[in-house]
Structures are given as C-alpha cells and as structure tokens.
C-alpha cells in the first residue's frame, strides 16, 4: 500500500516537475525571445562531449523570408569572422540567399541555404582524413587541423554548402585556415555555451529584423518549438531523394 502511495506521489512530483519546467521554459521564452532556448535544461557542461540525446537543426519558413533581406548572411559572417575578398566565386559563403522562381507559375521565393547538417553527410563519408565529421548532436563540422584541402567533400556536398579558403586568413574569430574547407557550424560555439544553447547568429538576426523566418532547436526534443512546428505544419528537405535526413528543414517551399 505504502509502496503504491510512494509511486503515486512520485508521479505527482514528476507532473509537478514537468509543469514547473514547462512553465519556466514558457516564461523564459516570453522574457527573452530568441535569446535563450527552451532547451536550456539540456545545457551541457563545457567538459562534456556532445550527446546524441540532442539533434540540433533549423527550420526555415520560405514565406516569411524577405527577398530584400540579407541580415542572416551578414550576421553569420560577422559572427564567425568570415570576410570576403570581393570575389563571390572564391570567397567563403557559409550561408547564402537563394532566389527561386517557379518555372510554371513564376512564383518567387527566397531562402537562406547553408550546410544542411545531414544525418548521413556525404562530405563525412568521402573525407579521407576524418576532418569532416558529425558530432553526436548532429552538427557537421570540419577539423581544420586534419583537413588536407582535397575538396572531395565539396564535390560530394549536394548543397554546394562548403567553401575552400582560397586566400590567407587574418584576424580569425574561430579556427580557419587557408587551404582548408569550411561551412556553417550551426554556430556551434553558441550551442556549447556553458549557459545553455543560444540561437545561431542567422536566426538571431532574422528575429531581430522581425521576419522570424528561422527557428533553431533540438529536433529530438518533442517540446521544442522547432519540433512542434514541424509536427504541426510539416517541412521538406532539399534533395530529400538522397535520403540524407537533413537537420535543416524548409516550410512553404512551393
């Protein structure tokens, strides 16, 4: 009997804890929208490796993405210290705006395109030195110390999301190096923030502009905004035919 009572008390406590956690999360989101994520509870200590309990991803609403706006690109490149040399063909482009015109209806949409952080990344498969890698939490990165600059990953990437550093680098914010390949890191330094994961610079900038076309979050957390939105409205993968299970999804792409 007493065991049963303990069990039911335990359940009640669990409900209370869940309720409190949700309330706190909702309050947090209301107080600081777009700054601290609702998955703060899952913040990992800096000395802990990334965990496969998370799968970080992005959701992008093509209808909300403004055609004249480039703030996600600017913010990304500022955040990560990616500077150009006035030649778009050889400059690093961690994220780029893509304008799509439907051939039949002439409907025009714009979307940001970046590394899609695939579950089965072709870039990682082909890398001969394991410089291209996927963290346990789904973030696809390049280890600049192991990258030999063969560019096979760039040949393999279906999204043209990777850039080769064609020029010497100066004033780096994060490790970069001439002759190595790089791409969107999903602002991994923000994910690993000791105070809890923060929105990537692109999402932050999009929110600041008031477009709110991008969501960042944990695809494995059923309570995250990104998961809820995906569940409710659906989302598509670019080149879904390749079966890569991308971490970046798009809505209203038609």
């Amino acid at each position, binding site marked *: 009997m007493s065991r049963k009572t303990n069990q039911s008390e335990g359940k009640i406590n669990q409900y209370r804890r869940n309720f409190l956690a949700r309330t706190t999360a909702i309050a947090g989101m209301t107080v600081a929208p777009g700054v601290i994520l609702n998955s703060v509870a899952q913040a990992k200590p800096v000395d802990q490796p990334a965990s496969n309990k998370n799968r970080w991803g992005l959701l992008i609403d093509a209808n909300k993405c403004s055609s004249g706006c480039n703030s996600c690109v600017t913010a990304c490149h500022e955040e990560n210290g990616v500077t150009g040399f006035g030649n778009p063909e050889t400059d690093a482009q961690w994220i780029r705006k893509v304008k799509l015109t439907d051939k039949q209806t002439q409907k025009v949409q714009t979307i940001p395109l970046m590394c899609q952080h695939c579950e089965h990344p072709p870039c990682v498969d082909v890398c001969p*030195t394991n410089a291209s890698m996927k963290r346990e939490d789904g973030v696809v990165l390049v280890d600049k110390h*192991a990258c030999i600059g063969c560019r096979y990953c760039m040949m393999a990437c279906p999204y043209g999301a990777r850039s080769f550093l064609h020029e010497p680098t100066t004033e780096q914010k994060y490790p970069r190096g001439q*002759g190595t390949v790089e791409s969107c890191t999903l602002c991994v330094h923000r994910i690993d923030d000791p105070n809890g994961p923060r929105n990537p610079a692109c999402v932050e900038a999009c929110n600041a502009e008031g477009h709110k076309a991008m969501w960042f979050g944990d695809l494995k957390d059923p309570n995250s905004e990104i998961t809820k939105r995906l569940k409710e409205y659906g989302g598509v993968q670019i080149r879904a035919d390749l079966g890569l299970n991308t971490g970046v999804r798009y809505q209203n792409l038609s």
Partner: protein
Amino acid sequence: MKTIRFTELEGRSPGFFALMAILIAIIGAGIVSALMMHGQGHHITGMTNRIVWGTPHVFAVFLIVAASGALNIASIASVFGRTVYKPLSPLSMVLSVTILVGGLAVLILDLGNPEHLLDVPLTQFLYNSMPSRWTRSVFGWNFILYTGFIFVVGIYLWFSLVPQYKKFSKAASIFAFVWRLALTTGTGLIFGFLVAREAYDAAILAPMFVVYSFAYGLAIFSLVLIPTYIWTGRELGDVIVNRLKSLLGIFVAASLYFVIVLNLTNFYSAAKGEGIQSFLLFGDNSYSSAFWIGQILIGSILPLAIAFYPKLKARGALLTAAAMVVVGGLSQMYVTIIGGQAYPMDMFPGKTVESITNDGGIAAYSPTIYEVLLGLAGIGITIFLVVFAMNVLRILPESLADKDVDPHHSA
C-alpha cells in the same frame, strides 16, 4: 626465341643530359607553381568554390588511370601467357609505378594543406584503414590502393628480375593484375559515388575507367618505348609495334563503346538529357568541343583508323595514334571532371535559381598557368623517373627486333 638480354641505358650522351635537364625544368616549374599556390592561396588558380577540381586534377586523374593501364603489357605476358610481350614486362611495371607517382605528386601538390598529411596522426590513418571506414570513404580505399600498388608492383618486379624468385613471379603478376583492377575501379568510383552530381553517380564509371586505363596506359607506354628505342639506337621490329598498335585499337574501340553506352543512357532520362547531357555534348562551350574534337575525333576515331589501316608505317602510326589517345584522354578528363562540375546541381527541380554563388548558372572556369604547369610537372616526374629507372635498372631489352621476339618470324 632467343634469350632476351636486358641492359641499362648508357646515360652519358649529351642528349640524355639535355632530356633530363628539360624534365627537371618542367618539374621545377610545377613545384614553383605549387609553392605559389600554397603561399598566396588557390585564388591564383582558376579553381573556385564551384569548380573545386581543376586542370591539376585533369592531369592527375588521367595519369593515375593510365598508371594501372601501363601494367597491362606485363599482365598480358604473364597472366594471359602471351610470351611475345614478355620482354616488355619490366618496363611496363616500372612505367606503371612512375606514372602513378607522377599523378599522385600532382594531386598532393594541389592540396590546400599537404603538410596536414603529415599531421594526420597514424591512428587516424589506421582508423581509415578499418573495414568500417573503407565502406564509406573511396579516398580511404584509394590511400591503400595507391600505396599498395607501388608495393605490389615493386615485389612483382623484384620477383621478375631476380632469377631465384622467378618462380613466384606468375603468382605476383596475378595479384598485381587484380590489384590494378581494384585501383582503377576505386578511381572510377571517386566519381561514381558522387550521388549528388548528375554528371557522375553512375556505376558504369568504374568499368569505364578500367577500359580507359587500358588505352591511356598503352598509349603512354608506346610513347615511352618508341622514342627510347630510336634515341638509343636499339632495334625495334614491326612485329611488336604492330601488335601494340592493334591492341591500342581494340582498347580505344572498347572505350568508345562505354562512352556511347553512358551517353545514350544519360540521354534517355529527360532530366539529364535536356540538362547536363545537352550541356556537355551540344552546348556552346569548351566542353562540347573537347568532347567531339578531343575525345571522339582525335582520341577515338582517328586512332582507330590509324590502328587498323594497314598501309601506314608501323612506328609512325603507333606513335601518332598513341599521342592522339593521350590528347583524347586529357580531353575526356576535362569534360568529365570540369564539365561535370560546371553544370549546376539540380537542387530545386522546376525552379530557376539565382544566388551570389551563381547556383543556377553555369560555373565559369579558365585555368591559369600555375595549374597547367603543375599538371605538366606530373608528366615530367613520370618521364624523369622512368628514364632514371632505365638508367639504373636492367629493364630494357637490348633488342626487340622481329627475330628476337617472334620465333616464327622469317626475315
């Protein structure tokens, strides 16, 4: 058949030193180009984030494919028992290794960070060698296949040249033959496994590269053999030359068959047919010219005609046909590697795509002198090493006169 005597090159004539000096200059120019690319960055080349592999890769992949093909003469002699080719076996083995070294040198010198190859810890390399990695990284396989090829052919050569080990040479030749098939398959699959790119992503690329390798390797072999015999005053009879010429013709015909099958298959698909296939074959661009004039006319039809037209002088015909096959091979690599990248990837079917990186458009590419010099250095390294090997090893028969190679020949 008389016993064939193998001797080294004398290597003391002014011509020899002049040749070596020219080759060193070519290699030096390539190394200086590579150093400049590493000092200033790859922006001094024509390569971009769209055309990520450029002219150096055209030369490098051509040489790597040709390398395995150059071993064919030895394989035909030993694995398939055609004794007439036996005297050519040592040269075939050495040349296959030097061509591979030339190709790999270009690949390595083009890397953005070749020094990181030394930084990559041994554990990383061993990890790559684990079967679980092999299944994913074709480059991982190729690390093993390329270095292994040099080792396997080295052993094969050793067994062939040292009398007491001759009994093992048959087994070594079979092993080397299987290895070279795996190597070229692996090279073909570098492209075959690129699932996202319409120009590649086809299993046929693996056997196609194997057949290409037969033709390219034999062409380079002939281009080394004939001048060597002319310049050193050694006898080279028409029996062997005519056989090589016919063999080259057969290999070119087989290559052409694969080209036709691949292109017809691609045209059958509406998306590919109207897209990349029309671009590569019927576009107003250098790739279509390289395909029709370089690969098909110069690289296939003319060598075929020369190979099977009986009234031509054997040596001149083989030299011309072989040179044409090399031009055709470089053209083919240009179309495959650069043309294949220039056409945009179809990320958004049914839509036109515009972006700062020209996502929906044809990527521009004009190679710079640095890339060309680096690519030529690969050929320079190949020839330098094979001439050096001829100078220190007894791999060249003193005579390849008809009476020496064909027991049934009557003068």
